[in-house]
């Protein structure tokens, strides 16, 4: 049984079909990136999964049951969603305490989590004065109160500085290593590319791809950039082999559908002189862009509905 299963989910807000027959699943121990441009229906999907939004059609289950039917929701799934989630006049400690009481979680756990997300010193200050990073961490602490087996995070990297994103990445990795299933949404692929095992790409409310991140790249371009005096000769050899090669800046070439190892072997076998071989960092981003840029994304989706 998957930790998270979304089956034929549709949600209509007035004239807008925010989510359209969407299906995907998340297995325990995996981090799945839920990707799509703003307005693609990510937030609506996550809120439906958590019982906050009534689907127009389809079902969403966590460990086989709808959210509302879970015996111990807080101990099963934790969520960080967009949009405040706390009262600016209430301290972080009191915010977590109110949730812990409703969830039947021991209040000692509140202090434990505040320490875990490095908010111990700010615990008794009004949360309205917290920085963006502190707010995100307060949200994470709330999500982890019940020590849940499943985590759902909506754009957790939003507004975080590079250190914050790195902290988040390591944190999510350690949580997944403990066997938790994590579904993390983002509209910026690079934020989550290094964190996730798999991606679900949605656009205009429909799933257009669910694949391990490696496979997503494989079919569309290993993305290897080669520069050097013999780059032109290498390009000819690769083209003769049927590879997709394009010319980059300064005489460099970019091979879309070969791995670094494959290109390296060819270089060694032919005694080609190069100065640089690197995986093109942009390529993953380009794949994402290609998948989601058939038209301008509809702005009347989740953002306006929210």
């Amino acid at each position: 049984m998957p930790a998270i299963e979304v089956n034929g989910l549709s949600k209509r807000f007035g004239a807008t079909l925010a989510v359209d027959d969407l299906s995907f699943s998340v297995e325990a121990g995996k981090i799945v990136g839920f990707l799509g441009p703003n307005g693609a229906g990510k937030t609506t999907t996550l809120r439906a999964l958590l019982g906050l939004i009534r689907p127009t059609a389809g079902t969403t289950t966590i460990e086989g049951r709808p959210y509302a039917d879970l015996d111990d929701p807080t101990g099963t799934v934790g969520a960080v969603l967009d949009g405040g989630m706390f009262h600016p006049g209430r301290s972080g400690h009191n915010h977590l305490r109110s949730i812990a009481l409703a969830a039947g979680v021991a209040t000692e756990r509140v202090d434990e989590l505040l320490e875990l997300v490095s908010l111990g010193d700010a615990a008794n200050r009004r949360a309205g004065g917290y920085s963006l990073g502190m707010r995100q961490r307060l949200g994470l602490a709330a999500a982890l109160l019940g020590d849940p087996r499943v985590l759902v995070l909506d754009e957790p990297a939003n507004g975080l500085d590079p250190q914050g994103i790195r902290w988040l990445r390591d944190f999510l990795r350690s949580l997944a290593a403990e066997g938790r299933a994590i579904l993390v949404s983002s509209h910026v692929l690079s934020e989550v590319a290094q964190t996730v095992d798999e991606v679900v790409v949605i656009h205009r409310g429909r799933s257009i791809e669910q694949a391990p991140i490696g496979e997503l790249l494989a079919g569309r371009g290993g993305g290897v950039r080669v520069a050097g005096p013999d780059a032109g000769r290498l390009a000819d050899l690769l083209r003769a082999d049927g590879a997709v090669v394009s010319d980059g800046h300064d005489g460099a070439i970019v091979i879309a559908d070969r791995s670094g190892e494959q290109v390296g072997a060819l270089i060694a076998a032919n005694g080609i002189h190069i100065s640089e071989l690197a995986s093109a960092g942009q390529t993953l981003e380009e794949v994402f862009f290609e998948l989601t840029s058939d038209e301008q994304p509809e702005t009347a989706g989740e953002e306006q509905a929210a």
Partner: protein
Amino acid sequence: MSGAIRSELVKLRTTRTFLGIVIATLGLIALLVGVIAAVAPFEPQETPGFDLVDTAGLAQPFALVLGLLAVSTEFRHGTITPTLLATPDRIRLMAAKLAAYGAAGLILGIVAYGLAALLMSVILPLRDISSELPFGDAVELVAGGVVCIALLTAIGVGFGAVVRNQVGAIIGGLAWMFMVEPLLTAIPTVGRWVEDYGLGGAISGVTGSGFGGEPAVGQVVGGLLLLAYAVLFAIAGALLMRRRDISA
């Protein structure tokens, strides 16, 4: 269930808004009772105790506002999301809010009437004016007043869940109490009915202190009428909550 109620009580106590409402309520009552008891020109044979304690009824609109904030504040700040994640059963959540806020209203009412009674019984004797208040009258006055304040808080909870927008809920609630009902009373027949059995009529009944003469309903009927309003709004609020998409 008790966890959800305790959670609501923590949420209620841990914002400045709550503290502000309590201080404003008690401050206003203390000021009015204190000043009237200290300087009003009473005749020596008068017994103004009843009217002075009755001043605690000023807590009524504050109690309504307190209740109106229960749900509307959660929507305003988006805390409704973590609240519903911890308590997904929305009917249960509304029941917990009603219990917590009803209790808070009850305590606010007891403190308000206690404060008015205390000030009255301390200040009047200093002026050699009788602070006498027959026991039976006192029980009726305080019991009715406290029940009224608790039920108004509960009515606010239901009304706030129906309206949801914080400013709209507060303006709507107070306007209904102080403007809409008084205006409706100008209409023939219907107006009479509103005056006797509307929110104002029910409050007059349960507290036994109507503005324009004797209330049309007695204390028990007035209390039951208020309870009926509270139940009606609670059901409407809970049903609407259950249907609502929580998008922020």
